[in-house]
Structure formats: structure tokens, C-alpha cells
């Protein structure tokens, strides 16, 4: 059932780092690439992120995730390469259009940043079970009600997708067209979505009764079912990350 997440089960040092340190890494990695606008530094950060993914044995799994952002990257390169406001130096010409050096340089920088953003999140997403992340956040004081919301989404969506299969078949059996012209396809949108929405809203009623019975609204301190896993290298890694980030900020302010 749990095919929603991108988590990859491996045994690696990255998997054994605690989720909050990885969260900190994601934030600092992305913020640094946007603070610094030097190609080499950004490339360095990106290569470092790749190195972590390789250590975590999940480098192959990040490629399709980067692929999802392909359209974004392509549009950045095309639009900025041809049309960036500071265009002066022609790099080379494609038919009637010319690619400008300034625009291409910026497009390249943004591409590096986007790939780094996706890969940095990849470090967190591919090597951390969502349950572990939410549990770590709960222990840091996240409201348990909110923790429930985050985790139940991951369970509800596959259920709803399964339900839509049934509804699509049922509506087709009643003669609904799901292929054809744009208007035809558009008209079938509501008959498909309506029953699923109604169904899931009615289900929320049962679910909230079930939760209330189990003391969902109880005040007071909660205990945890699972024992905390022994994560490693947490404190030194955090210190290193924060030190790096301070260096970046100082460097940015000075230069």
C-alpha cells in the first residue's frame, strides 16, 4: 500500500543520520546555492550533494526525480539563453536567433541550483521514511494532531486512487465518454471527481468518530510506541553544517 513515498531501503551511513539533521542539510544546501552566485561554488555544492547521494546508495533513484523537473530546466535554458535582459555578447546563432553569453551563464547557474535543490531534497526523501521524519518532529514538539494529518495523507491517497479506478469504470459502464475532443473530456471531469469527493468527505465523518473514540483530542503528554532509533553522527554534522552556512553568509556579506 505504501507506494506513495520515494524512500529507498538501503543500509548506508546516510540512512543512519537522524531526519532532523538531514532536514537542516536540505535547508542549508539550498540556501547556500541561492546566496552565492559563483558557478564554481554552486557546482561544488551540487557535487557534494551528489557525493552524499552516492554514499547513501540512492544516486540512481534521484535521476527520475530530476527528470520531473526537466521541463522547468529546459524552459529556463531556452528562455534565459535567448531573451535575458542583459543580452549583449552573442555566443552562437541558431537560425534567426542568437544565444547570448550572459543569459546562458545565468541559465546555467539556475540549472545548477534547481538540480541541487532537487538532489538535496532527494537526500532527505530517498533515505528517510516519512514516519521517521514525522516522529522526529513530534519529539521536537510538533502537535500530534498535525503529525496525524501528515501521515494519514500518505495512506489516504492510494485508497482514493484505488477508488477512482472503480468510479471511472462505473461511469464508463453508464456511457460516459472519457476520450474525444477537449470539451468532451472536460465534461467528464465532474462526473469522475464528484463521487470520489463525496465519498471521501463522508468517510471523514466516520474517521473522526473513530479517532475521537481513541482519545484523539485528549490533552496531556503523549508517549511513543516506537523506541527512538539510534541515529549517528547527529551533533558533529549539525555543527559542521551550521559552521558552513555561517561561512557562506559572512562570505556573501564581505564580497
Amino acid at each position: 500500500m505504501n507506494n506513495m513515498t520515494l524512500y529507498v531501503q538501503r543500509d548506508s551511513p546516510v540512512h543512519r543520520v537522524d531526519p532532523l539533521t538531514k532536514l537542516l542539510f536540505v535547508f542549508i544546501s539550498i540556501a547556500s546555492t541561492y546566496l552565492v552566485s559563483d558557478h564554481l561554488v554552486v557546482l561544488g555544492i551540487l557535487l557534494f550533494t551528489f557525493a552524499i547521494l552516492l554514499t547513501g546508495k540512492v544516486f540512481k533513484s534521484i535521476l527520475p526525480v530530476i527528470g520531473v523537473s526537466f521541463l522547468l530546466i529546459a524552459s529556463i535554458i531556452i528562455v534565459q539563453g535567448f531573451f535575458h535582459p542583459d543580452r549583449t555578447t552573442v555566443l552562437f546563432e541558431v537560425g534567426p536567433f542568437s544565444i547570448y553569453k550572459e543569459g546562458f551563464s545565468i541559465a546555467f547557474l539556475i540549472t545548477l541550483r534547481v538540480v541541487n535543490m532537487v538532489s538535496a531534497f532527494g537526500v532527505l526523501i530517498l533515505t528517510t521514511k516519512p514516519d521517521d521524519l514525522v516522529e522526529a518532529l513530534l519529539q521536537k514538539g510538533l502537535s500530534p494532531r498535525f503529525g496525524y494529518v501528515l501521515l494519514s495523507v500518505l495512506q489516504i491517497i492510494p485508497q482514493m486512487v484505488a477508488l477512482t479506478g472503480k468510479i471511472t469504470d462505473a461511469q464508463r459502464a453508464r456511457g460516459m465518454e472519457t476520450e474525444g475532443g477537449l470539451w468532451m473530456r472536460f465534461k467528464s471531469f465532474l462526473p469522475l471527481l464528484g463521487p470520489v469527493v463525496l465519498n471521501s468527505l463522508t468517510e471523514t465523518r466516520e474517521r473522526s468518530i473513530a479517532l475521537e473514540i481513541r482519545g484523539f483530542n485528549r490533552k496531556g503528554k503523549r508517549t511513543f510506541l516506537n523506541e527512538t532509533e539510534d541515529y549517528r553522527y547527529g551533533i558533529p554534522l549539525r555543527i559542521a553544517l551550521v559552521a558552513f552556512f555561517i561561512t557562506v553568509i559572512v562570505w556573501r556579506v564581505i564580497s
Partner: protein
Amino acid sequence: MKKKRMWTLQFSTAAIVLIPAAVGINFLGKLFASVLKLPLWVDAIGTVLASMLAGPIVGAIVGIVNNIVYGFTTDPVSFVYAITQAAIGIAAGIMAYKGWISNVGKAIVLGLVVGFIAAIVSTPLNIIFWEGTTSNVWGDALFAIMLAKDMPLWLASFADSIVVDVPDKVVTVLLSFLIFKGLPKNVKLMYDNSGEIERL
């Protein structure tokens, strides 16, 4: 009947359970749009519906959770747009509360406003993160044309977002409105915050 309060952090259990369901509805809207090959995203029906049912704050939470979960499961870039989704939820929630969902005409106005707000919030994000593009072909074509004519970057980027967001949000709000009108009354009352009608 006491009128329900718009701004409250005291969520009923039903309102909390509504959040994951609404995120699921967002997800399905997007899924159906791609299955039917519609040229729109329609990925905010759940957000708008939750705002109509349970107010702006629940709507905003749905928006944020939606993009976090989507970022976790499909495309990390969507983390960036969590703020846009939150703004959509807040805008739709306030206007729905003020009665802008009483008929189709008003719902279209609501859609236009939500679209504009989405564009206003997205533009700075687009400029900060990718110098103005949105990765929607039509919007980016317009963006390129405007840059080629030496118009300022922010204006071109805003136009880029408007072209994409306004039609999408008008359709989204209209669909949510039609679904909302079709809901049975006991479902609508379930998320009411007054706590007097039905306290689960």
C-alpha cells in the same frame, strides 16, 4: 444558529480529518486532469473546497500540506509553491465566508481573485528561484516575447503567471463550487466551527 467564526485555531476533529481528504482531492484533480489530458493543472480543488467548508486557516493548511506531500512523493520543486497554495486557501476561505459562493457569477469572480492572488504570490518566487519562468509552455512563450521587447523582468514574469494561473483557478473554483453545491447538508455542517450543531 450562531454564525461560524472565520479565524479560529480550535479545529474540530472533523476539520482535521478533512485536511488529508482535501489533499487527496487535490491529488485526484491533478490525476484526472492528466488522464483526460486537459491543458490545465486543476490541482487546487481540494484546497478551495476545504476553504469553503471549514474556513481560510484549514484551507491554508491544506495548501501547505499538499505541497509538502507532493514534494515528498513526486516533485521536490513543489515545496517552493507551498506559499502560493496557502494564499489560495486563505483567499478562497475569506471570500467564501463573505458569501462569494452564493451563485455561479460570484464564483467566477472568486476564481479570478484567487487566480490573481496566486499569480501575485508566485511571481516573486519565480523570480527568486528561476529568474521568472513557470515551465508552462504558453506562459513562458509570452514571457520570452515580453523580454524580447525589453519589458521589465517582473512585469514579464507576472504576465507569465497570470496567463497560467487565472484560467486554471477560475476552472478550479468553478468545479469546487459545483461540487460544493452538490454536497448534502449534513456533510457541509460537519466542519462548522460553532460547535453547537454537532459536536463529535
